[in-house]
């Protein structure tokens, strides 16, 4: 299958739902090893993003991603704002020119998103940041030739869970050094919601 405009809209909406539902949980995770605002930041940003996408009409997935990118960039703030914003902007650019998005194109989009995240944040996989979810997801996408909802959900989930045992090198949690071990990375949890929502959309779309 290919990602159509409606899929992309549903993706953002589902992501927002999960983030609103888990807003306090995300903030609590961030309180443990950061400054406690991750849920607030993401909830503010995705609420606005959905406000934007539901009040506009689109003919391409790329445009949706672009609006999401711009909204996140200007509404989230903190570390996650530029990172999620950059991710969506890079995905928007990678899938530009076609109305819907093939698995191959999407995979390319995620790859570009990761490059953008790395360029901005200077982190690498294993630093206990959202890259620890994005990178395994990319590897999984690259190993497959079509969207596979279940493995997407599973990959993202186990990647998210394994951030718990890692010591933070980048982000605010890095100040805690060893004390950051034993806590999930909040940005990885929100990234898990993002990919889990995509998995749900893919399932519905089948």
């Amino acid at each position, binding site marked *: 299958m290919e990602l159509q405009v409606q899929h992309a809209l549903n993706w953002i909406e589902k992501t927002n739902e999960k983030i609103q539902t888990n807003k306090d949980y995300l903030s609590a995770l961030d309180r443990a090893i950061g400054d406690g605002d991750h849920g607030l930041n993401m909830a503010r940003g995705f609420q606005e993003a959905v406000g934007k996408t539901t009040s506009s009409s689109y003919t391409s997935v790329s445009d949706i991603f672009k609006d999401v990118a711009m909204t996140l960039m200007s509404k*989230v703030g903190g570390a996650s704002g530029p990172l999620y914003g950059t991710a969506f902007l890079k995905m928007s650019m990678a899938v530009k020119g076609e109305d819907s998005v093939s698995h191959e194109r999407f995979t390319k989009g995620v790859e570009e998103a990761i490059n953008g995240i790395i360029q901005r944040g200077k982190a690498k996989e294993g630093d206990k940041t959202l890259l620890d979810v994005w990178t395994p997801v990319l590897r999984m996408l690259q190993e497959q030739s079509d969207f596979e909802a279940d493995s997407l959900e599973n990959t993202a989930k186990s990647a998210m869970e394994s951030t718990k045992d890692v010591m933070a090198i980048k982000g605010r949690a890095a100040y*805690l050094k060893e004390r950051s071990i034993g806590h999930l990375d909040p940005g990885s949890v929100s990234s898990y919601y993002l990919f889990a929502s995509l998995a749900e959309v893919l399932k519905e779309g089948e």
Partner: protein
Amino acid sequence: MKKIINDPNLVVQDMLAGMVAAFPNDLKVVPNTTVVARKDAPVSNKVGLVSGGGSGHEPAHAGYVGQGMLDAAVAGEVFTSPTPDQVYEAIKAVDGGAGVFLVIKNYTGDVMNFEMAAEMAAAEGINVEQVVVNDDVAVEDSSFTTGRRGIAGTVFVHKIAGAKAEAGGSLEEVKAVAEKVVANVRSMGMALSPCTVPAAGEPSFVLADNEMEVGMGIHGEPGIARKEIATADEIAQELTQKVLDDIEFNSGDEVAVMVNGLGSTPEMELFIVNKKVHAMLADRGIKVYKTFVGEYMTSLEMAGCSVSLLKLDEELKELLDAESKAPAFRS
């Protein structure tokens, strides 16, 4: 959570309105932004100074806007770095043709958002330079990690770079002196109690009655160690020693001292800490040129303090002494 607020989601907006109401001749909010700027911004042919960060650090950063200090401060949500578009608005608002200088505290979010704004401004042909302040010796300075945080020492950067810009310094000169301050300022903090982000409603951490947190940031992040609460002298000793160990201070050196309250520490206690800091410096033959005791860079209603030392030379002394009309830093 007990706070004197209206709506937890409107605290920044309400605060900025109340601030500009208090200083209508000196400050303005750039319309439809969270940028507080000098009333007379942009000042033509003067380097424009922009700083900012999450809210909740008051009087930082808007309290340092004024002649001789910042031209604009960008306010993010509480403890959340402002977004690039807001920083960009600030840059545009203070660009008087001599370029704009950004004072950024070293947090991933701040660095990224300010840099993106700088890229936007550069694309519009505005000359932008920056310094990243990382005075917090509680955190290891490593290029492999996020590096040290920027905390209360940042106020010295505002003051000194601001004075340089006010005196007509070029963008390069302002940058050079700001880097000199960053190279010579070190800080460390501790907390007795946490703070509560209004929209979150939960305290940032929980300390037992006999505990203190050492090596605090200014966002309610946990510090580097949790210990049994100590006396003022012991606390001052620990913070100051860590600062002294970090860069070379020699007998005869002159320093500026800042004993900064994090929000709910009575000034009485800050002065008690200051007494010990001065005694330690005197023991080492380090001369105190000027002392600042009070709330300069807070963490909402956190109880605790930080100690900053800035090693001075003639240029820094002169700029530190120069006039400032910022509401929170009159000299």
